[in-house]
Structure formats: C-alpha cells, structure tokens
C-alpha cells in the first residue's frame, strides 16, 4: 500500500513538473513589461469624490471657523490632477453640515525659493480645513506638514507613503483600484474628528493610542 502510493507519487511528480515547465516557458515568452495604463480622468474623478466624502465625514472644532456661516476651505497644494474636476463639482455641491465648501489652490513658490518665502506660504495655508497635497516630493510634503503645524487641518495626500510619513489620509493604488490609508496617530493628535466610518474602510498605518 505504502510502496504503491510512493510509486504513484513519483509518476505524478513527473507529469506535474512537465505541465508546469511547459506553461512557464510559454508564459515567460509572452510576458511584456508594459506599465499599467491608468485612466487619468477616472482617477481624478474618483479622488474628487473621495475628498468630498472626507469633508462629509469629518468634524472640525468650532474655533476652526470664524463664524457659523464660514465655509469649509479645501486647499490644493501642488500639481493636482483633481483641480479641474474638483472646481466644477465644488461650485455645484450642496453645503456640508450647513457650511458651503470653498476651494482654493495654494500658490507654491518655485525651486530656489527662500525659507522665508515658504514660511509665508505656510502661514497662508493655516486657515484651511482640508489640505490636499499632490505631485510634490515626499520631503516637500513633509516640510509642509511640519510648517503648517496646525492641529485643526485634515491633511490628505496623493504622494507615496504620505500617511506613513505623518499625513492623516493618503491615497494608494492597489492593483487597479484607488484606496486610502489612514495614520491613526496623526488623526488622534489632531483636533479634527474623522468618522469611524472612514477609519473602518481605511488601511491603517501608524499606531493608534
């Protein structure tokens, strides 16, 4: 019984290896290393939809607004693919929690700008409620986060490792879908409350309390 099962296994092993070898040869011959083709338009629309959802599911402290009528300010910093889509959507969108949503783009200085110039840019960004960073280097994004230093800004980024490096929410491409990571530590240090609904769907990076 044991002997016959060992013999059976040897024969099987050979035919399995044969099938595997053949298929590997055929597959490796035909594989191409073409990059994934992202539908840029679709991706921009999706990120815009996400951003509006983040605004919907976040709560800012009362003192983040000058008055009960003050709008929720969404600031874009960097080369953002969502700019046009977001602009058209925000102008038509309904108020969130009784406040309208206002979009502004930060005027970032070019390379070679002095530290002072950057400081004044950070100052101007401090009044924002949601800061969306995109198309910048990881170092520059990190510098912006540090420079703003406000605890009532929801920081979202479309830069690799954004959430791992201190941002609150970062977009990630997983396969052919866009999902988002959330840094629990950064979210807890902030006075912005992010709904459990968002956190439940996020991939968590950074330890919570």
């Amino acid at each position, binding site marked *: 019984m044991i002997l016959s099962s060992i013999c059976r296994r040897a024969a099987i092993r050979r035919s*399995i290896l044969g099938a595997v070898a053949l298929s590997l040869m055929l597959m490796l011959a035909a594989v191409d290393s073409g990059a994934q083709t992202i539908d840029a338009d679709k991706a921009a629309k999706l990120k815009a939809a996400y951003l509006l959802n983040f605004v919907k599911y976040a709560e800012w402290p009362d003192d983040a607004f000058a008055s009960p009528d003050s709008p929720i300010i969404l600031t874009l910093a960097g080369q953002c693919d969502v700019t046009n889509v977001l602009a058209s959507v925000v102008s038509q969108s309904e108020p969130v929690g009784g406040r309208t949503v206002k979009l502004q783009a930060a005027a970032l200085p070019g390379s070679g700008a002095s530290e002072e110039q950057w400081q004044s840019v950070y100052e101007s960004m401090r009044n924002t409620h949601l800061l969306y960073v995109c198309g910048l280097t990881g170092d520059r994004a990190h510098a912006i986060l540090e420079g703003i230093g406000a605890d009532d800004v929801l920081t979202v980024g479309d830069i690799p490792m954004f959430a791992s490096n201190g941002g609150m929410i970062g977009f990630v*491409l997983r396969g052919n879908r866009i999902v988002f990571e959330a840094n629990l530590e950064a979210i807890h240090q902030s006075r912005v409350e992010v709904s459990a609904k968002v956190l439940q769907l996020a*991939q968590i990076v950074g330890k919570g309390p």
Partner: protein
Amino acid sequence: MQELLELPLERLMDIPVTTVAGVQQGWFQAPAALHVVTGEDLRRSGHRTLADALRVVPGVFVGSSGAHSWVVGMRGFSGSLANKTLVLIDGRAVYDPLFGGTFWDVQDILLEDLERIEVIRGPGATLWGANAVNGVINVITRRASETQGGYVKAGGGNEQHGFTSLRYGGKASDNSHYRVWGKYLQNDHSERTGGGDAHDEWGLGHGGFRYDHDLDDQTHVTVQGDSYDLRFDEQARFPVPGVHDTFTRYRGHGWARGTNVIMRAARETGDSGWSIQTYYDFTDRQQSRAEIERHTADIDARHHFRLGSRNDVMWGVAYRYSDDDVRDSPSIDFQPAARSFKTLSGFVQDTITLMPERVFAMIGTKLERNSFTGFEVQPSGRLWWTPNDHHTLWASISRPVRVPTRIERDATFTFGFIDPALAADPEGPPSGVIVPLQLTGNPDLKSEKLLAYELGHRVRLTPSLTLDTALFYNDYWDIIFVPKGTLGEFTDEGTAETFGGELSVQWRALDRWVLDTSYSYVQVQIHGPILPQDQSEAPHHQIKVLSAFDVTDDIELNTGIYFVDQRPASGADAYVRLDQGMTWRATESIELSLWGQNLLDDRHREASANVQAERAVYVAATFKF
C-alpha cells in the same frame, strides 16, 4: 461624475481605474449573472457562517439540514442533486469529489477578513471547469496589507453558545505583510421535528495565516494556510444485517480535521498578466461511523495578453490530483476503498472587441482529461453590448459537464434488510431468506451534460438605483441519480429542463439607507428513469430584502427579510425569515452588536424533514487595536 458623488464610500473603493480595452471593467459590464457580496455586506447581514452568508445572494437557496449542515443550490438542484456548484476559497476547490457537494461546516474563514464572495449563477465552465455546472461560489479573503493590526471578536447567544475570533496583522517589511488568525465556536444542537434534541451539537477550532509580498506594484506573491478541528455529536440508525427490518440506534461523536497550504504568484499589468497557484489540502472526516481521508494537490497557471487591438486572450493549464481512503460504515461501502483521481485541464478564451466600447464577444473552451470519464470538452460563448454607461445587455450559451462522483460509481448504500415474504405479508410465515435493500454505484456512468442559454440586462435607472435581471433555460441530459424505485443501480439516463430568472434591485434610498432586494423563480422538470426528487427540492420563488440603515454615524440598523417558497421534499412550508441587528460603534476601536435571527418563527423546516431551524439571538463585541 454625479454618479460617483452619489456612491457610498465603500463602493468608491471598488471602482477600477485602469483601462483594459476590450475586457469588462467591474461588475456592471460582466456578461454573466454575477453577484458580489462584499465584506461590508456580510458584516451587515449578521450571518456567522459562510453557508448562511449565501442566503443574501439572489437566486441562491440555502436550507439548513441540521445544526452544522446546509444544502446550498441555485437554479434548481437544491437537494440531493446539489452537486453542481463549484465552491472555491482563495482559489482552492472545497467541494468534496466523493459526493460532489460541500461540507459547509468546515468551510469557515475569519468573516471580518472577507474581501468578497463572487457568485456566478449559471455555468462558469471556461474559467473554472468541470462541476461549475449550475454555479460558482468564489470566496476571496483580503490581502494581508488590508488586515493590519489587531482584531478580537467575542460573543454568544442561545443557539451560538460562544464564539471568539482574533487576528493580528503586521508588516514584515515595506513590501510584505502578514496576518495570523484563530477562531473558536461552540453551537447548540438543532431541534427534531416533533420536539427533542437532534443530538448534533458542534464545536470548531480554526486557525491560519497569510503572508503577502509585493515584488513591485504589479507583482505579488502570497502564501497562506489554515487548519481546523471540528467535533460534533451525532445520532443515526443502522440496519441490522440478517434480521428482518430491524435497526440499531447509534449515538456518538463525529469529527473532521483539515489542513491546507496555498502558494500563489501573480503579475498584472492591465494589458497582460499571469498567475500561478499551487495548493495542498488534507481532510479527514468521520461521520456516521464512516471515515474519509483525502489528499489533494493542485497546480494552476493562467496567462492573459492583448492580441492586436481587438483581442484579449486568456489561457491556462491545471493539474489536480486527489486521492481518498474510505473506511466503511454499516450503511455505506466503497469498492475500491481507496482511489486516486487525476484531472489535467486546459482552457483558452478570447475576448473580442467587435465594436470599441460597445459590443464584445467572448468565446472559449475548457478541455479536460480525468480518471473517470476521460476526455471532456466544455465550450461557451458570450456576447454583450454596452450602449452607454447605464446599460449592459448580455447573452450566453455554454455546455458544461459534471463528472460522476465516487458515490455514484463505487458506493453501495444499504438501506435495510428484509425477508421478502414478511415484507409482502407481515402476518404470514417468514421465508427465512434475508435480502439487503441496496443502491449501488455504476462504473459505466457517463458525465452529465448541460446546454445552458442565458440572457441578462443591467440598467442604472438613476445614480442610486440599479436593476439587474438574468434569465436562463437549461437543458440537461445524462443526469445521474437513483433509479425510480430507489433500489438498484445509479443511472445516467435522466434528463431535465430548468428555467427561470433572477431580478435584483439595488437602491440607495437615502444617503444613509441602502436597500437591496431580489426575486428569483425556478421551475424544474425531470424526465427519464430517475427519481424526480429535485422537482420538489427547489423552492419556486424566493424574495430577499436587505436593508442597511445608518441611524447616526455610529449606530446601524440592519435588516434581512427572506421569503422561501415551500419545499415539499423536506415537508417544509413556505416561510418568511426576519433577521434584525443593531450595531453601535462605541469608540473607534469598539463595536457592539445585537442580532436576532429567524425572529418570526419559533422553528421551521428548511432542507430536512427531521430537523428544524430555530429562532436565535446573539450579541457580539469587537475590539480593534
């Protein structure tokens, strides 16, 4: 864009953003009767087992036939012939080739880590092969990178005496993630019709791991495995040989153990991709004093690539080896007691863009050589039209086969022993000769064949209202079943037609309220010298209503209403099942829920005449860290 804004957050995560011209993008364009149950859907349904979770799928019949057994079928054949559905967990086939069905009690994953269950009603022949005759159930768990951190869930109720699950996920490096998990549950016995304990209490311990490594953005390697141990009480009746019409009652314990390891590597670049998977699966089960031990090894490789500007070709090869060793019981005997079964298969399919972005066709075939019936060919063709973003119209013809199982070929069932004279005239003199009442296997069985015609339509009426319809007409021949008199030999001379359809409506009624409703109809006609059991085993009508309502950001009210038509084969009347649950996210890391299941009925029959499903209530607490 307006449509995107109306979608709930969780649905945004399902939208593919890569253009793969010629190949369908997402569920809406799929040329098949496809339904996806997401991890969120499962969480909001309150079901605690995979078999129960399938109750939410339009057209799928799930009936409990004991505390830890279920009949799951679709498009007819929802009973003794429920051997026509292929069930996969992470690519591993979990239906048992001994009888073609699935032991649902051990098909158990950490429900929190479910990514989705894809259910295709109708043949999935080309991609999944033999046995995917009436449907494919593909259970997919989340990648380790999506299950990071700790998770503990514990709860209990009147039927589920106690359950606890825990998982921890971490990072081995920037590109590799892992998780380890374990769960344990203990469930009550079911009720016998007429009262009393059905003596089928059960408990299950299950644990596993998964390790994912991303070589780069498009290339992934996965290793995963799990192991389970099931114990249950049981009772059965066995005939006493040599004595007229006498049975002994047996009461004892059964068990099942299993372990599996899967390794998978895949690369997907949108235009092309390949994957290779291999697994080893060991199961050992003792039930009603019969024991089956099975080893399975499988390797599967597939590749897809663009050919010119209009074709997307996918092909694959697979080899599966499965051997079993059966120890007989007084009621069932296998000759030979041990057998190995090998299947070598290949498939090729071409998706052709007949008109860019509008009309597509898919033709393909699966070729297979197996140890029982030799060479089988399973061709299929699909056509679909997407006139715009709001409509998809599709049609298909397929010809899948089902290969006979060991039970149909090698088994001998002994129902009892009788003295023919006494059976004819109980008052008269015995003849002294005792004969067995048996049903035997038939080694000459051909495989069952089906010609399936399907038609489907999906329409997005408004950004928050989607309708999905599927119609089918199935023509079966060479159906294998017991002969009309129940005794004798399995025969493959049955034929049948089934037809019907499913309609499902997904409606985002309010920002905070999603309502998913479905209706399905199936009619089964069986002909030929076989017992037409299944005509009375598939309820004609089913209606399902699932409501997910967010009272506030932290409180959910979830409801499931299921109407199942009568099922005469098990003496089951039509019933309405109501499940109601409330979930409270107390903090970011703590969630509490209370669920009532089968609230309208103290008990009712489903898929068994002898045992009944009961009302159940349970509470559960979840802690994430």
